[in-house]
C-alpha cells in the first residue's frame, strides 16, 4: 500500500508571529521555519505503517517555495521513501492546495493520504476534508489511532466530549490530531541518507490546476492587546479580589 503524506513548511511553532506594520500579512523574513507539527505526526504515522509492513511506500509531498525542499528532506530523514515538491511562490488557499494534491494523487494513486489536521499558520483545518471531498473519498479527521487492514482504515477520532471510531474504505484521507503519536527525531545517519533519496520538483504551472484565490486579504492586524493586571500576595487575597470584581 502506498501512503501519500502532504507536508507544509510553516513558521516554527516556538516563534511568535508578528504582523507587518503595513498590515499586508505576517512578517516571515528571517524567521525560523519548520515542518508543521501536525504534518510531523502524519509522517511519523506513515513511517510506522511502513515499519509494521502495512505500507510499502511513503511519499511526502509539499506545495510551496524552493525552501520547502528542506521540509521534504526532514520527512525523508524521518523515513519517507521519496518526495515531491510542487513549487510555487504563491500562497495558496486550502481549496487550491486540495486541487493540486488531487492532481498529484492522479499520478501517484496512493491508497491512503495521511496528513496533519491543521497548519499552524493559516489555522484553517480544511485541506484534508476538501481533498476527500473533491476525490469523493471518505474522510477520517482528527485521528488519535489508525489501524489499516483488509482495504479499510479503522480510525479513532477526537471529538468534543470524547472519542468516535469510524471505519472508512480505502482509498481515504485521514488527518492527524495531536495524540496520534509522538514524532521521532531524525538521526544524523538518517539525515545523511535522506540527502540521497529522490526528490522531484515540479512547477505548479505544469499541473494545469486552477489555483485562483477566492478570498482577497483586506488587512492583517494585531489582535487586541490584553495587559497584565496585578499580583496578589495570597490565595485569600485572590479570593477577595475576585469577589470585589464580581466574578465569584
Amino acid at each position: 500500500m502506498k501512503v501519500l503524506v502532504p507536508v507544509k513548511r510553516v513558521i516554527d511553532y516556538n516563534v511568535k508571529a508578528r504582523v507587518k506594520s503595513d498590515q499586508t500579512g505576517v512578517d516571515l523574513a528571517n524567521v525560523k521555519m519548520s515542518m508543521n507539527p501536525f504534518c510531523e505526526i502524519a509522517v511519523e504515522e506513515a513511517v510506522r505503517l511502513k515499519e509494521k509492513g502495512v505500507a510499502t511506500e511513503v511519499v511526502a509531498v509539499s506545495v510551496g517555495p524552493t525552501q520547502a525542499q528542506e521540509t521534504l528532506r526532514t520527512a525523508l530523514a524521518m523515513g519517507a521513501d521519496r518526495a515531491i515538491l510542487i513549487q510555487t511562490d504563491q500562497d495558496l488557499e486550502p481549496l487550491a492546495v486540495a486541487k493540486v494534491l488531487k492532481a498529484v494523487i492522479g499520478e501517484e494513486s496512493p491508497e491512503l493520504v495521511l496528513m496533519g489536521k491543521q497548519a499552524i499558520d493559516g489555522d484553517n483545518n480544511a485541506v484534508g476534508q476538501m481533498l476527500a471531498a473533491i476525490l469523493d473519498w471518505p474522510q477520517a479527521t482528527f485521528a488519535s489511532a489508525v489501524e489499516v487492514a483488509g482495504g479499510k482504515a479503522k480510525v479513532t477520532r477526537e471529538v468534543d466530549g470524547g472519542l468516535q471510531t469510524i471505519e472508512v474504505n480505502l482509498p481515504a484521507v485521514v488527518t492527524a490530531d495531536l495524540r496520534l503519536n509522538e514524532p521521532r527525531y531524525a538521526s544524523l545517519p538518517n539525515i545523511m541518507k535522506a540527502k540521497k533519496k529522490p526528490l522531484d520538483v515540479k512547477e505548479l504551472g505544469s499541473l494545469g490546476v486552477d489555483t485562483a484565490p477566492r478570498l482577497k486579504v483586506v488587512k492583517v492586524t494585531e489582535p487586541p492587546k490584553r495587559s497584565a493586571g496585578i499580583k496578589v500576595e495570597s490565595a485569600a487575597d485572590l479570593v477577595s479580589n475576585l469577589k470585589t470584581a464580581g466574578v465569584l
Partner: protein
Amino acid sequence: MAVLVIADHDNATLKDNTHKVVTAAQAIGGDVDILVAGTNTAAVAAQAAKIAGVRKVLTAESAELGQGLAEAVTDLVVGLAGGYDYILTPATSQGKNFSPRIAAKLDVAQISDVTEVVSADTFTHPIYAGNAMETVQSSDAKKVMTVRPTAFKAAAEGGSAAIESVAAPAAPAKTHFVEQKIVKSARPELGAAKIVVSGGRAMGSAEEFQKVIEPLADKLGAAVGASRAAVDAGYAPNDYQVGQTGKVVAPELYVAIGISGAIQHLAGMKDSKVIVAINKDPDAPIFQVADYGLVADYKAAVPELMTALG
C-alpha cells in the same frame, strides 16, 4: 439573501453555540434558517424554533446524520445549498469536520473560525494561533464558513419559526460508524462554562492533575481545561485541551494553574473576561495576560485557595 445555520446539538438538546452562530447570521442579514440534522430531531428543532428572528427550521433524520458522519451531513447540505447564499456552522470539532467538505463540494473557499462580520462579503478570523487577525473579502457566490461561537452573543429566544422536514440523503457507502465514547460529566461543558480551571505540565502526573485541578473546578462549579503540554504528557484527555489546536474558550473567569502561557495556549483563552494565573515562576508569560497573578507553588496555593473559598 438567505443564510443556513447548521445547528449544534447532541440529538437531545440544542447547544448554545447555535444561538451564537444565529447572531453572526443576523449580522450578515437576510433570512436565517436553521438545519437540525440527526436522529429524533423533534425536541432539538422545537428549541431551535424558539430563537428569535429565525425564518424556519429544517429537520432531516437518519442514523448517519445522528452519528455526525461528514459524508452524510455534506450530502444533505449540498442538496439544500441551492436555496442559500451562506452556510454557517459553529467551529466545533463536529463543524470543522464537515464544513470544509461542504465548501469543496460547492467549489468555494471556507472561511474558518470567523470572529467578526465586517460586511456581507468581508469577515475577520484569527490566524497564527490568534497572533494575527486576518480580514478577507470573499468573491465566491456562496460563502461557507465556520463561526467561532465565543466571539458572538447568543441570539435571544422568543420566536416561533415553522418546522419543516426534508429528506435525508442515502447512507454513505464508504464510511461506517463503529462506536462513540463520550465521557459523561457532571461538570459544565468546557466551551460553554462560566468558569474554567485549567492545569498545566507542572502537575507532573495524571493523578496529580485529578487531585489538584478537579476538586477546585468542582468547588467553583467550573469546567476543567488543560494546556497542550499537559495533554501531550498524558495528564489530561485531549478534549480538555485549551488552545490553538484545542478548544477556544472565553469564560467569565479562567484560572490557569501551573501553566506557563505558551502562545498556543494563550490563543485559546485570552478572550476570557477575568484571567487568574497561579505559577511559581514570576517570569511565566501567563502573567502578562492575567488580571490577577499569584506567584506561588500550586501545591501550597491550591489548598489555600480551597480554604479561602470556604
